C-alpha cells in the first residue's frame, strides 16, 4: 500500500488507493497542462491530445474504438446515462427494460425512477450463486423491450455473469445490452465485440486511478440521449468541461492494469483462495456467499451464523483491518443487502456477512493476520450474540 500506516486495507471493492505511477502522470495536468480541451490554443490542444490518448488507452482495454468511449464523472453517472439515455432515446420503440435483482443502486434506482416515468421494469432473479437464468432472460425479452442491463461482476459477492451468452441473446433479439463492469474492468479480460456488449460502465477509482473519472462505452450507432446538455463535449453525450487530470489518471491506471493483469489475477486468486479456505476451515458454521468459481479474483464474502456484521466490521477496524459488511453504499444504512437477499439469504444471514476484497497491495501476511484474528472475534461475538443458538 502506498505509504499509509500499519492498517490492512481489505475493501478494494469500495475504492482503491491511487497508484503512485498514476499520480505522477496526473500531476502535470494541474498547473502546466491545465488547458480546456475546447480551446483552440496550444494549451487547449495539449489537453485535447491527452484526452484523446486516454480515450484510446481506456478503450483498448475492452477492444473498443476510441470514439466509443464517453468519459463521465462517476460509475453512477455512467449507469444513469446508459439507462435513462437509452430509455428516452428509444421510447418510441418500446418502454420495457430488463435488469437483474443484484444490480448496483445506481442501476436499481435509475430503473425505479424510469418506472415512475412510465417505463416497465423487469428484475430478473438470480440463483443461490448470484447467476441469472439465461432461459428466463430469453423469455423476459418482449417486443417492446429496448434495453437489458446486467451487472458484469457483482460488487458484493463477486459473481461474474455469463456475459457472452447474455450478449448473444440480446443481439439475437435486437435489444441493447448494457453491463455495469465497474468491478471487473481491468481485473478480467473483456471484449465488447466478442461479448456483444453495446454499452459498458467502467470506473477509475476501483482500479487504482483517481475518483471523479469513469466512462461509458457506447457502441457506434447506438441511439442514446445525454443527461447533461451544454457545450457538446464527449460527442454531445456529456457536456461539462473535461476533467483531464482525472481522465489521464484513469488512462494510466488502465494501462497498468492491462500490462499487469495476467500476473496480478494469478496472484490475487491464490491469495483469495487461501483466505476462503482458511476461513471455512478455521471457523465453524462459516459460509461463502457467491459463486465458488465464477467470481472476481479479489472478492471474498462470507456469512457467519449468529454473528452481527456491523459489530464484526468495527471489531476488525479496531484491530486495523478495513472490511465491509456489504457494499460501501449500504454500510451506513443497516438494511439487509438486497444482493444477499436475492441469492436466498435470510435477513439475519445477510446481517452477518463480511466482505473482504483484496488488491494490488495485499500481501500474504495480511491474509495470515486476518486468519489469525478473525476466529477469535467470531467466537466472542457468538458468545454474546442475540441470535445465539438456544
Amino acid at each position, binding site marked *: 500500500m502506498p505509504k499509509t500506516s500499519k492498517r490492512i486495507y481489505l475493501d478494494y471493492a469500495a475504492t482503491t488507493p491511487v497508484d503512485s505511477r498514476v499520480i505522477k502522470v496526473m500531476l502535470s495536468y494541474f498547473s502546466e497542462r491545465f488547458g480546456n480541451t475546447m480551446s483552440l490554443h496550444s494549451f487547449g490542444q495539449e489537453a485535447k491530445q491527452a484526452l484523446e490518448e486516454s480515450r484510446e488507452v481506456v478503450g483498448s482495454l475492452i477492444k473498443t474504438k476510441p470514439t466509443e468511449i464517453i468519459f463521465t464523472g462517476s460509475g453512477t453517472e455512467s449507469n444513469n446515462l446508459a439507462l435513462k439515455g437509452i430509455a428516452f432515446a428509444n421510447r418510441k420503440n418500446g418502454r420495457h427494460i430488463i435488469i437483474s435483482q443484484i444490480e448496483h443502486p445506481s442501476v436499481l434506482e435509475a430503473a425505479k425512477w424510469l418506472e415512475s416515468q412510465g417505463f416497465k421494469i423487469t428484475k430478473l432473479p438470480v440463483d443461490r450463486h448470484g447467476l441469472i437464468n439465461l432461459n428466463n432472460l430469453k423469455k423476459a425479452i418482449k417486443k417492446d423491450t429496448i434495453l437489458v442491463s446486467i451487472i458484469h461482476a457483482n460488487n458484493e459477492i463477486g459473481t461474474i455473469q455469463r456475459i457472452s451468452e447474455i450478449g448473444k441473446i440480446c443481439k439475437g433479439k435486437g435489444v441493447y445490452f448494457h453491463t455495469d463492469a465497474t468491478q471487473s474492468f481491468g481485473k478480467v479480460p473483456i471484449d465488447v465485440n466478442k461479448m456483444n456488449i453495446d454499452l459498458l460502465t467502467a470506473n477509475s477509482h476501483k482500479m487504482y486511478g483517481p475518483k471523479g473519472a469513469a466512462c461509458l462505452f457506447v457502441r457506434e450507432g447506438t441511439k442514446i440521449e445525454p443527461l447533461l446538455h451544454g457545450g457538446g463535449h464527449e460527442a454531445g453525450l456529456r457536456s461539462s468541461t473535461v476533467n483531464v487530470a482525472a481522465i489521464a489518471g484513469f488512462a494510466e491506471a488502465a494501462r497498468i492494469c492491462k500490462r499487469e493483469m495476467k500476473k496480478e489475477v494469478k496472484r490475487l486468486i491464490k491469495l483469495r483462495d487461501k483466505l476462503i479456505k482458511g476461513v471455512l476451515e478455521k471457523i465453524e458454521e462459516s459460509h461463502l456467499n457467491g459463486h465458488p468459481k465464477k467470481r472476481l479474483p479479489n472478492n471474498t464474502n462470507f456469512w457467519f451464523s449468529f454473528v452481527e456484521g*456491523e459489530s464484526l466490521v*468495527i*471489531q476488525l477496524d*479496531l484491530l486495523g483491518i478495513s472490511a465491509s459488511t456489504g457494499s460501501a453504499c449500504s454500510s451506513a444504512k*443497516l438494511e439487509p443487502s438486497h444482493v444477499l437477499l436475492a441469492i436466498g439469504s435470510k435477513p439475519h444471514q445477510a446481517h452477518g456477512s463480511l466482505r473482504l476484497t483484496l488488491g494490488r497491495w495485499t500481501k500474504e501476511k495480511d491474509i495470515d493476520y486476518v486468519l489469525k484474528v478473525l476466529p477469535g472475534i467470531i467466537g466472542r461475538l457468538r458468545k454474546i450474540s442475540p441470535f445465539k443458538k438456544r
Partner: protein
Amino acid sequence: MRKLRSKKVVAAMPPYKSLQDYTGQAGGSAKKKVIVAMSGGIDSSVAAALLKRASFDVIGIFMKFWSEPSKDGLQGAWNRCCSPEAERRARKVAKILKIPFYIFNFEKEFKKRIVDYFLKEHKAGLTPNPCIVCNKEIKFGLLLEKALALDADFVATGHYALIKKRKDGIHLLRGKDKNKDQSYFLWQLNQKQLKQILFPIGEYTKDEVRKLAKNFKLPLSNIPESMEICFIRTTVNDFLKTHLKGRPGPIAEPRTEASFIRGRQVHYGVKKIVGQHQGLWFYTIGQRKGIELPCGPYYVLDKNLKKNLLIVTKNQKDLYKKKLLAKDVNWISGKEPKLPLKIRAKIRYRHQPASAIITKNLEPKTYTLKFNKSQRAITPGQSVVFLKGQEVLGGGIII
C-alpha cells in the same frame, strides 16, 4: 492535532475521582473500554473528553434515529438530535479527541419502539415520555448490546445524573446541577444496566461543563440545547395531526368530581356540552391554550376516551389532586422497599418534587401515591419518579 489541556479547570473544581475508580488503571489491569454516545452536543462531547482524560479506551458512537420524512419532497428532513449537522459536529469532536468514531443506525428500531409507542399512547389519550423509553430500549438497550459486542465494559452518555456503587448495590442519584438533572428520564433502568453505564458529567453543573468544553478546546459554542422531543420538527400537535386522524367530539364541563374505585379512576359526569374538539390526542391535562372556547379561559381536566369526551373546567382549582395511581413500577435496586414509604415524587420532568406516601394495591397491581399537598395536572401516561433524598428509588406510569 490539539492536545487536551484541561488542568486549569480541574484545579478550579473539586477533585472528583469517580471516573478513575472505573478505569482499572490503578490496579494495573488493562484499560477499560467505553462506548460513548456522541450527539455532537456539548454534554456528550465533554463526557467523551472526560473519559479520554481518565485514560479509558474510548470509542465514539453516533446514533441515527428515525426522522420524519419531509413533506412536499423538500430537501432536508431530519431528526433534531441526529441531523447531518449534529453528525458532522460529533465527528469533529471525535477527531479532536483522537478516538475512533462510528455510526449506528437505529432508525428502524427507533421508529418501532419509540415513535410508534409515542403515537399509540397518544391515540389512547395518554401523554407519554418517549425519552424514558428511548433510554431503556435504545441507549441502554440496543446500544448497550452493541457495546458488549465490541467488547466494551461501559456505555457512557452525557446525561446529568449520577451513579454510585455501594455495598448494597448501584444507586441512581440526581445530577449535581439540579436545574439540568435528567435522572427523571432514567427511572426504568435496572441494576444490570447501571453496572455498565457511566455518566461522566453528572458531577458537574452545566456551567462547569461549558468551561470544560472550552478548556478541552471543543468547537461547540452556539449549539441549541436539545430540549424537545428529538423526532418532532415543529410541535407535538403538528406531528400528531400528520400521523393520527382527527376524531372530533364534544367538549363538556363536569358534573361531579372524579373518584377512585378499587384502584381505578372513574370519569367525570357531564354537566353541559360547551364545544367541539378535534381529537382527544391534541390535548393534555392542565392545558389552557388551544381549547378555543369563548368565555374562557378553560383548562383540560380529563379525557373520556370511551365517549370521546374532553372535560374542561374554568376553575383551575379542579386541576389539583392529592392522589395518583401508578402502574409498571420499577424499583432500581431490584427490590421493593418496605411500604408504605415516605418519598418525594416528581410527576413530570419540570416538576418540583413533592412529598408523598406510597402504598401498594394488590388488585390490580398498582401503587397509590398520596401527596401532602395537592398537585396540579396529574397526567396519565406521564412518569412519576420516586425520590428519597437525592436518590431515585424508581418510578411508574401514571394511570
